[in-house]
């Protein structure tokens, strides 16, 4: 063909141009272009051409370090590229002397002990997977599972692709092809269901859980009920299998376990307690005979992955069982904490979700997704309690108890001229606007700790914006039915309740406080920053306390009115709200007092130069402040105190002795709040269902108070010894005292950091 000759001729050019790179290169390009042109004519269908030589020649022309790249491709992205042939990066790299694939025949029959071991190993890996490790490092490392999931395997998904029923199988083969296979299939289908639950709720990929399937599908052609049938068949195989009784029982136990696990995932209504009965699993585990060859991380060479190869995770069988039990316990607790009684009170439910989040060890992603499913899968939080009702109950409990404005009946009135009808439409419109952010509070507490803090920090500005909406709605409401007006606390001017504004403000302040305290728990503040954060926490708590007082005064006025009108149910509601407000007031007072004490203690440690900010040459105070307080700076309604205001509060603190007195007074007040809270009933304090956690928390807070007092007296003693207690603070205790900040795990309460003060030995 003349065309080919032309291409050949063009490529011939390259041979002569030895010394001259430019000609050489041009020739190559010509040759290549010639070939390219030809390929359009009658060349190969896909139009692939070899450019090895030309490319190499061209690349050589580049200067070292010079890049030819897509303008939209950044070097930042390039850092994430996997380096091929690097054993640490390239999951497909085969070390010299190693084989590509593991040398193990999954079709081979196995003795019962080894089958048992593989089953237990798979359960262990399931636990590790639940803990957040990817499938590629856990269940997918099973060569049996790998064969089932292999892209060219089809339903009914056997280990061998051919028909095995044609010949009579040995017992060992039956144990593999009928029993182990059924177990593997049930487990894989369980994984699919777990993934479905997690992915239909809020979670954070990689951070919480890896949902990646590495290009594999989880047996899409068969359903969970097919898997259950296979398990049942496997049971009948084991019944007649030639194994001893103990072994038979052990195999039964495992098949039953896989069956229960799967059916629990299919049907939410069944009881997870059955899965915590792992005693028999534990007892018969010693019958297992290890067969490590049945698992290999070499499967990662066949998996689609953009990550480097990773090792298999090793935790012991006992530990795995323990974690499994705690997951089941979490799920059972999730059921209990969302039962009908708990869901009747919005605050009770919030408390319950917090209690769930603070279970030890922290519930894993699946358990948290399970809780979210219980809460949000339907349109109602509990039987007869729609989300809307929950929110209305919240508004009623907090700001409008016994008031017709938030009475559910008002929402049913259809006469357009009725002010209740008009008001209900205003309240409804407001609730629509707040709805998402309000429900977020419940959902966010189901996330991991760092995310709770982060999403709360982001929520502050949103709530501040919603406060504007609330003000608008309140104005509209009072234009329809003017509410009660009371003299302002100072007596100078009159104020209205502004119920919706007060309600939003309450949540805003609540979340502002939570965000700081979660900051303490997640350890994001440096030791010298504790002082400022405690001061702001005190300010937020104080504002909340004042807000509650404001709401309380209107409640008292309303109750007087209700008593005269003899509306019993409304009066009961108002009385309950009164008790509830007292509890909230005490809680705010407690937070204010304890943070006041800790602020003063930290402040003292700073001015005595015991705690010092790190040396930063280019740091400016205002900029550091702006960054630290960023989440709170966007607040338009009642902005937070400025840096200057904070600093002037600092300067008003007197001598060491007087400061210590101040701390002790604050602690005494905090303790007196706890005394009242301790006597509060679950109904008053809205902690139905979380009684135990309520008591435990109060105990932790009491201990925290004691710890603050002890540390204060410790500091005072050292100051005394060196004759500095009444002296000015400028002399300092530098070098005489050391301070350590306890890590979140070693505190009496994770939300309260109490600096540990020790005299330094000379």
């Amino acid at each position, binding site marked *: 063909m003349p065309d080919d000759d032309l291409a050949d001729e063009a490529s011939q050019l390259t041979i002569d141009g030895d010394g001259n790179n*430019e000609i050489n290169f041009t020739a190559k390009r010509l040759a290549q272009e010639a070939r390219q042109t030809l390929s359009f004519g009658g060349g190969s269908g*896909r139009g*692939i051409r070899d450019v090895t030589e030309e490319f190499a020649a*061209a690349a050589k*022309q580049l200067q070292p370090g010079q890049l030819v790249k*897509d303008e939209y491709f950044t070097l930042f992205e*390039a850092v994430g590229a996997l380096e091929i042939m690097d054993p640490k990066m390239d999951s497909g790299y085969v070390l010299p002397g190693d084989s590509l694939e593991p040398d193990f025949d999954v079709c081979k029959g196995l003795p019962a002990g080894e089958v048992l071991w593989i089953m237990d190993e798979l359960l262990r890996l399931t636990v590790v997977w639940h803990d957040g490790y990817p499938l590629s490092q856990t269940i997918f490392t099973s060569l049996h599972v790998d064969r089932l999931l292999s892209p060219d395997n089809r339903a009914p998904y056997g280990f061998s*692709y051919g028909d095995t029923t044609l010949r009579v199988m040995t017992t060992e083969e039956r144990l593999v092809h009928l029993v182990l296979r059924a177990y593997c299939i049930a487990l894989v289908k369980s994984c699919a269901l777990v993934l479905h639950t997690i992915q239909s709720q809020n979670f954070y990929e990689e951070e919480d859980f890896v949902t990646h399937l590495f290009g594999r599908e989880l047996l899409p052609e068969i359903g969970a009920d097919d898997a259950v049938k296979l398990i049942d068949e496997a049971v009948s195989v084991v019944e007649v299998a030639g194994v001893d009784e103990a072994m038979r029982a052990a195999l039964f136990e495992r098949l039953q376990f896989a069956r229960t696990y799967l059916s629990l995932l299919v049907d939410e209504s069944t009881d997870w307690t059955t899965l915590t009965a792992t005693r028999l699993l534990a007892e018969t585990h010693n019958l297992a005979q290890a067969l490590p060859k049945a698992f290999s991380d070499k499967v990662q060479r066949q998996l689609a*992955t953009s990550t480097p190869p990773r090792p298999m995770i090793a935790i012991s069988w006992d530990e795995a069982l323990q974690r499994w039990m705690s997951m089941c316990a979490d799920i059972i607790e999730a059921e209990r904490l969302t039962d009908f009684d708990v869901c009747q009170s919005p605050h009770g439910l919030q408390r319950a979700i917090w209690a769930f989040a603070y279970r030890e060890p922290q519930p894993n992603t699946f358990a948290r997704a399970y809780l979210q499913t219980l809460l949000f899968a339907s349109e109602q939080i509990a039987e007869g309690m729609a989300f809307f009702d929950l929110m209305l109950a919240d508004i009623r409990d907090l700001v409008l108890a016994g008031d017709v404005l938030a009475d559910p009946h008002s929402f049913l009135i259809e006469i357009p001229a009725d002010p209740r009808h008009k008001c209900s439409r205003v309240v409804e419109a407001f609730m629509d606007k707040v709805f998402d952010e309000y429900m977020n509070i419940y959902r966010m507490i189901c996330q991991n700790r760092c995310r709770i803090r982060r999403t709360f920090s982001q929520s502050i500005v949103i709530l501040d914006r919603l406060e504007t909406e609330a003000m608008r709605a309140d104005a509209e409401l009072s234009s329809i039915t003017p509410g009660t007006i009371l003299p302002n606390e100072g007596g100078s001017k009159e104020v209205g309740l502004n119920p919706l504004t007060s309600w939003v403000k309450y949540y805003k302040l609540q979340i502002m406080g939570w965000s700081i305290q979660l900051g303490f728990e997640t350890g994001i503040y440096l030791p010298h920053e504790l002082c400022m954060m405690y001061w702001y926490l005190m300010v937020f708590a104080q504002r909340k306390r004042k807000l509650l007082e404001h709401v309380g005064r209107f409640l008292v006025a309303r109750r007087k009115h209700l008593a005269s009108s003899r509306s019993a149910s409304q009066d009961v509601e108002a009385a309950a709200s009164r008790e509830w407000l007292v509890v909230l007031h005490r809680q705010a007072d407690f937070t204010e007092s304890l943070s006041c004490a800790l602020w003063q203690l930290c402040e003292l440690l700073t001015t005595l130069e015991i705690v010092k900010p790190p040396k930063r040459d280019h740091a400016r105070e205002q900029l550091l402040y702006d960054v630290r307080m960023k989440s709170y700076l966007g607040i338009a309604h009642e902005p937070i105190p400025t840096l200057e205001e904070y600093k002037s509060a600092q300067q008003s603190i007197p001598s060491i002795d007087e400061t210590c007195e101040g701390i002790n007074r604050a602690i005494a007040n905090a303790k007196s709040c706890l005394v009242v809270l301790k006597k509060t009933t679950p109904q008053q304090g809205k902690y139905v269902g979380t009684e135990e956690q309520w008591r435990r928390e109060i105990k932790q807070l009491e201990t925290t108070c004691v710890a603050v007092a002890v540390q204060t007296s410790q500091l005072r003693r050292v100051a005394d010894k060196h004759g500095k207690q009444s002296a000015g603070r400028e002399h300092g205790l530098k070098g005489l005292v050391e301070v350590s900040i306890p890590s979140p795990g070693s505190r009496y309460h994770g939300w309260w950091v109490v600096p540990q003060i020790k005299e330094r030995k000379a």
Partner: protein
Amino acid sequence: MAGVEASTESAYAVQYLDGFINKTLHLHITDGRMFVGQMKCTDNERNIILAMTHEYRQPSRADVKLAAERHEKAGMPGNVKVDMKKRFLGLVVVPGQYITKMEVEG
């Protein structure tokens, strides 16, 4: 005038290499694997960054055996056809020293 020559030369080279940006390349490497992806970047050592990359590998002896068994059991006539093993990798950098052959699509 060597400097001028060198610069036109390298300008040519850059222009030529630029033509490959976002083209689909097939890179064969020393261990027999092939990578197919879109070229994003290269340098004077012919290190190449590919995006959306798939790895292709010759089927192993075990794969061939398995396919043959299946073929036989299904009672199909003729030769057994075994596909190359393919998996998705995403963004990779293939060091120039391992590249044995380069092809471009289209």
